[in-house]
């Protein structure tokens, strides 16, 4: 045998195998030695239909299983409770499923309303059928298109700001919408721009004048019940003040923290973005409808606060300011504070709801 081969054979015989440690139950190999476990737990405490996972007992079966052909899972991120929301039938009164994303994006869902009447914007005889975005209708919800934008960038450059990436944009003939997979913008807010889908009907023509709504960016969150709006071009032009050409920021004051009830007797407040809360009332920049008017068609130049329809139109809104409200709610409540901006040719609509005043509990 060649001397080099002898050396290799000897080396192979002396070299230990890769696996030299065989640890018994309750121990494991760590850095070549067997070590005891940090904790040992038994399933003695686990009840029926539960099993031991680590040191806790968990149900063997998921608490909720949604039928994938008729429902969609909606998980409440704070409680983990799963709700099966129907994906068909139920008509316009059924809630639209709005699943929580887990990939860092955001979902936004809600109902589109006619700003003029305050009623849900639905097609006559609506059944909840999904719109076909490739073939928009000439009227009703299925004539609309919705795009998501970085709100701050959009205010600075409405024509040159590209839409945010999204996955499905769902609309149905009940006026319910769902936008999933919204990529997070660099700014703090996401704006939804609502206008006619058909290029020829965009702008003041068609079902709606361009309308904007906004909400905060929140990755891995489903923002539900965000009210969208349509405003007919003739309606916006008929207000006269503030001029649509300069952009209108519209506030809708709701009487409760949830639900559609509207608040009367509210005056819009203004303040610098650097020194919240906004407390100044400026009648010259705020326009209200009549005290008893339920339709939002005619401005009452003598009105000093919101009427029955809860709305105010504001001129000259800018991101340098914040907007809120005063009046119409108990002292234990305060109006939400929101940023806003006037974009030429656009009606930007913001819902305001009562919230806890500092150190108080708002019952609404």
């Amino acid at each position, binding site marked *: 045998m060649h001397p080099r081969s002898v050396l290799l054979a000897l080396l192979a015989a002396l070299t230990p195998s890769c696996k030299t440690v065989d640890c018994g139950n309750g121990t494991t190999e760590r850095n070549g030695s067997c070590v005891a476990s940090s904790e040992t737990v038994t399933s003695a405490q686990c009840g029926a239909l539960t099993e031991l996972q*680590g040191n806790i007992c968990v149900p063997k079966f998921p608490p909720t299983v949604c039928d994938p052909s008729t429902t969609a899972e909606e998980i409440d*991120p704070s409680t983990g409770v799963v709700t099966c929301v129907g994906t068909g039938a139920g008509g316009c009164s059924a809630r639209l499923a709005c699943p929580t994303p887990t990939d860092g994006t955001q979902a936004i869902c809600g109902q589109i309303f006619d700003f003029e009447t305050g009623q849900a914007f639905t097609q006559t005889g609506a059944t909840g059928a999904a719109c076909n975005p490739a073939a928009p209708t000439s009227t009703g919800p299925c004539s609309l298109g919705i795009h998501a934008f970085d709100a701050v960038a959009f205010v600075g450059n409405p024509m040159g700001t590209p839409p945010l990436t999204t996955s499905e944009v769902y609309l149905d003939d009940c006026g319910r919408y769902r936008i999933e997979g919204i990529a997070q913008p660099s700014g703090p807010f996401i704006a939804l721009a609502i206008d006619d889908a058909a290029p020829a009907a965009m702008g003041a023509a068609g079902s709606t004048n361009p309308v904007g709504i906004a909400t905060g960016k929140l990755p891995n969150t489903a923002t539900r019940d965000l009210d969208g709006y349509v405003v007919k071009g003739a309606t916006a032009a008929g207000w006269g003040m503030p001029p649509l050409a300069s952009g209108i920021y519209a506030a809708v004051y709701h009487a409760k923290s949830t639900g559609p009830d509207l608040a009367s007797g509210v005056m819009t407040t203004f303040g610098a973005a650097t020194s919240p809360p906004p407390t100044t009332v400026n009648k010259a920049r705020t326009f209200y409808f009549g005290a008893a008017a339920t339709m939002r068609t005619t401005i009452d130049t003598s009105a000093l606060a919101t009427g029955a329809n809860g709305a105010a139109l504001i001129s000259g809104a800018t991101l340098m300011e914040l907007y809120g409200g005063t009046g119409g709610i108990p002292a234990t409540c305060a109006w939400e504070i929101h940023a806003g901006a006037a974009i030429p040719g656009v009606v930007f609509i913001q819902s305001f709801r009562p919230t806890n005043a500092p150190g108080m509990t708002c019952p609404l």
Partner: protein
Amino acid sequence: MQLDLSPANPVQAGARATPGPGELPAAMHFTLYAITETTTDQMTQDHLFEVVRFEVHHIVDISSPCFIDVGDHVPHAGLHVTQFARRLQQDTGIMDPAHPPAGATQQQIELVATAQQRMAEIAALTGPGGLVAVTSASDVSYPAVAADCTGQADQIPPPECMDDASNQRRLQLCQQTWKSVPQLWEGTDRVLTAPLNGTTFGMVLNPDTPITHTPVGGAQIFVENALDGIDAYAIYLQADGADGPGQQLYFGRPTMPTRGVFHVHLVNPDNAALTAEMAVFADLGGDDVHF
């Protein structure tokens, strides 16, 4: 092992900051346990073996008294980074680089403009959607912060103290702490993956990072445990200094290995939307394609 924590994974608040919505207190840690199961007479016994402890932090902690500039290449070693722009404004006399005073040089203007940009980028990196690091764990805190710039020698000057003496004292006390506690993590915005102290294992998944808008994610951790016979894995949350594993955050079982690599899909027991993915390279010798 490679651990991919989802963007929904909870993040720890800064060392001296009040936890914000969804944030965990600073004095906590995560522990990855490997679990072996034995079943006798219908009784299951789980043995939990601690594999590694780690923490999850915003990429820099502006509330930390030791978030400082360090090294020969920085203009003011020991300066708290939150005061970087202010100090350069003071050095150059330029408050607004767009409207510099007469006599300001181009280099001075660039220094202040760059400093202001640095502050803006730190705000973006630590704000919503910012970067989150998976780091080494330590239950040691920094020395106390002095009430003002003339505090005791063993107290770290407050961040707003940016004079040379304060910077020097802050540098000395921070480096002294770091030397005695190598696991105490302190990040820096200068090199995101090279912390001032401790180890950055990697990042929490983020599909759209601020500034560059590139996706990042994945943490790599080398461990001493042999992980080829493990039945399950769990990640727990526990307050520093407390006994027991704490609160279970994730649990998952390894699936069939592919070329010697186990995949573990970890799920929160109460919230199926909270997940993490883990790959365990337990036996690369089993990869007959690459090895």
